[in-house]
């Protein structure tokens, strides 16, 4: 199917009334999730994964995808108005967005965030449309050693770009691989680490683990401190930026779009990294870097464009290679596998409805988001006023029901609660959940690729280094592992 006929087919799928409804529902929920602090897109997607049992795979994926890029839009609202990021990719927007609000320019900040996000989101979908079929052809040359090497690189990149310690992120990745081995080994037929528990015979369920780590764990952590928020008390007027605002912002939006898209493609990259990288780049390129942090609109436009563009770019490794680029994509992969689909280079041929339907729905989703975000800002401000003390029991309830509904089993709820404790302790001790979740999802594929590679090569590990693509990927991973050691400055001793 060529590009044009693929797009036309995609629009014929995406414009069906029920798919339009799910697209709208997804971006609405995503915006809401982005607006509400304490509930990120990963937790929201995990909470809604069980609903995919009842919708078809196309509608389900359209909705879940909408939640992801919708959350990127919504997160900027709280960053600008209350200096608390709605989700992690909007942390950087707090730096200048909130300062603009304090100067009475909340309207242009919100407007630029929404319009910049729309332009970047549209760019990334166009790029996705052009790149994805081309990359699918390249991916057909991938064999088990290449897949293994790419997964190792993905986990390494995620650990390298972790905001905390790379060592701890790698530990979580290793732990994730260990946890992915729980359950029945399909090759030998033996049970691993189940100890007679029926719940564990199918392995640790992705939904209970993610709900525990990102949902319950986050809530337990937030319960330690009382979350108070002061919404910036100002009448928000004049949402459209001025000509001068456009003059200084168009460059950051264009650069952010490109940067975000390519960082989104990289396994281990994503919206969070893209927003930070864009901010750093704009500050470096600016003639007035001292203005950053005091209300520079470029500090809002660039990162917001980058995080939305990265959200689109992240779909490429998922749809084309069947490899999730980050934890949220890992959940989407889980959702597709629940539907009996296997993302990969053959998806475009085996499930063109899904492939083209999801891509074209993103064009429509970006339009819905522009409509939702600009006129409905007043509504989102009212939503922000819902006390967290009322919100968190409801989120716990969703986690409980969501975990139970997977297999109608209390065992999954127990798993969710245990991982809630794990997530809480991980936050206390400074460990990140994303590498663990990505490794948990990639673990079975990693093991399969590893075993197949070793069987093909009669046990010779050299197979990973004699094939050029695999060797290149593993060498890149090795460089990333060694880079912190090579660039390490002597630690400055300070009284603790």
């Amino acid at each position: 199917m060529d590009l044009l006929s693929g797009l036309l087919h995609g629009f014929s799928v995406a414009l069906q009334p029920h798919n339009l409804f799910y697209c709208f529902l997804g971006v609405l929920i995503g915006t809401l999730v982005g607006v509400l602090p304490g509930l990120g897109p990963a937790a929201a997607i995990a909470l809604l994964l069980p609903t995919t049992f009842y919708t078809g795979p196309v509608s389900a994926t359209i909705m879940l995808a909408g939640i992801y890029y919708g959350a990127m839009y919504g997160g900027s609202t709280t960053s600008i108005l209350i200096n608390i990021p709605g989700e992690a990719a909007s942390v950087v927007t707090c730096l200048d967005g909130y300062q603009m609000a304090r100067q009475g320019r909340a309207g242009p900040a919100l407007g630029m965030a929404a319009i910049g996000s729309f332009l970047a989101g549209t760019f990334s979908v166009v790029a996705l449309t052009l790149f994805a079929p081309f990359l699918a052809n390249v991916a057909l040359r991938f064999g088990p050693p290449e897949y293994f090497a790419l997964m190792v690189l993905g986990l390494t990149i995620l650990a390298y770009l972790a905001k905390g310690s790379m060592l701890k992120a790698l530990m979580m990745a290793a732990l994730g691989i260990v946890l992915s081995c729980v359950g029945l080994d399909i090759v030998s037929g033996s049970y691993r680490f189940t100890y007679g528990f029926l719940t564990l015979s199918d392995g640790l369920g992705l939904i209970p683990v993610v709900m525990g780590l990102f949902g319950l764990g986050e809530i337990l952590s937030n319960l330690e401190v009382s979350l108070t928020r002061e919404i910036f008390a100002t009448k928000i007027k004049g949402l459209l930026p001025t000509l001068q605002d456009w003059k200084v912002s168009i460059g950051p939006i264009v650069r952010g779009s490109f940067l975000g898209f390519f960082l989104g493609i990289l396994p281990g990259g994503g919206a969070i990294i893209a927003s930070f990288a864009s901010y750093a780049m704009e500050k470096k390129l600016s003639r007035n870097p001292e203005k950053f942090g005091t209300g520079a609109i470029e500090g809002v436009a660039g990162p917001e464009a980058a995080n939305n563009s990265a959200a689109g770019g992240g779909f490429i490794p998922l749809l084309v290679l069947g490899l999730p680029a980050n934890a949220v994509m890992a959940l989407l992969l889980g959702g597709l596998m629940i539907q009996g689909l296997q993302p990969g280079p053959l998806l475009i041929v085996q499930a063109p409805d899904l492939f083209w339907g999801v891509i074209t729905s993103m064009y429509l989703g970006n339009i819905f988001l522009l409509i939702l975000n600009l006129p409905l800002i007043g509504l989102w401000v009212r939503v922000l006023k819902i006390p967290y003390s009322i919100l968190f029991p409801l989120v716990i309830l969703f986690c409980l029901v969501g975990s139970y509904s997977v297999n109608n089993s209390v065992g999954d709820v127990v798993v969710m609660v245990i991982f809630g404790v794990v997530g809480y302790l991980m936050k206390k001790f400074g460990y990140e959940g994303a590498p663990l979740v990505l490794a948990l999802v990639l673990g079975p594929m990693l093991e399969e690729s590893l075993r197949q590679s070793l069987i093909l090569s009669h046990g010779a590990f050299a197979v990973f280094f004699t094939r050029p693509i695999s060797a290149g990927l593993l060498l890149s991973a090795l460089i990333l592992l060694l880079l912190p050691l090579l660039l390490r400055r002597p630690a400055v001793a300070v009284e603790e």
Partner: protein
Amino acid sequence: MKKLDRVSAAFWLIFSGLVAIESHRLGVGSFRSPGPGFLPFFSSVFLGLLALALLIDSARATGVAAMPEEGTPSGSWKSPARALAALSVYVVLLETLGFLLCTLGLIAFLLRVVERKSWPVAISTAVLAALGSVVVFQFWLKIQLPPGIVPIYF
């Protein structure tokens, strides 16, 4: 933070050792024919080596200032502990008493005891949340919730 790193590193070192022993029992196999314990064994060894590196790193550093993004600021652990206790009781009683009663009790407890809301607010919110969730999850999404002693007919 360095003290916390030492504690966690020691934990992961012990954990990885136990996993390695269990993986060996499952059968590591050979490179030509990997067994069921192959990947968990090498992953746990890798985890153990990283934990050792963290232990050495934290023991060696003479008080490097903690990065603010590592570890959350500590508040009162009592609220999370109470919430966890309530969840544990919820899980134990869920299939016996059923979803409706357990959810009612859990939400009321969380709002009254953990968040110190007034009784009318706690009870009314709990009733609304429990009934609303039955409507959404059982009737709309067709999720089979445990009926317990209060059967939910649909």
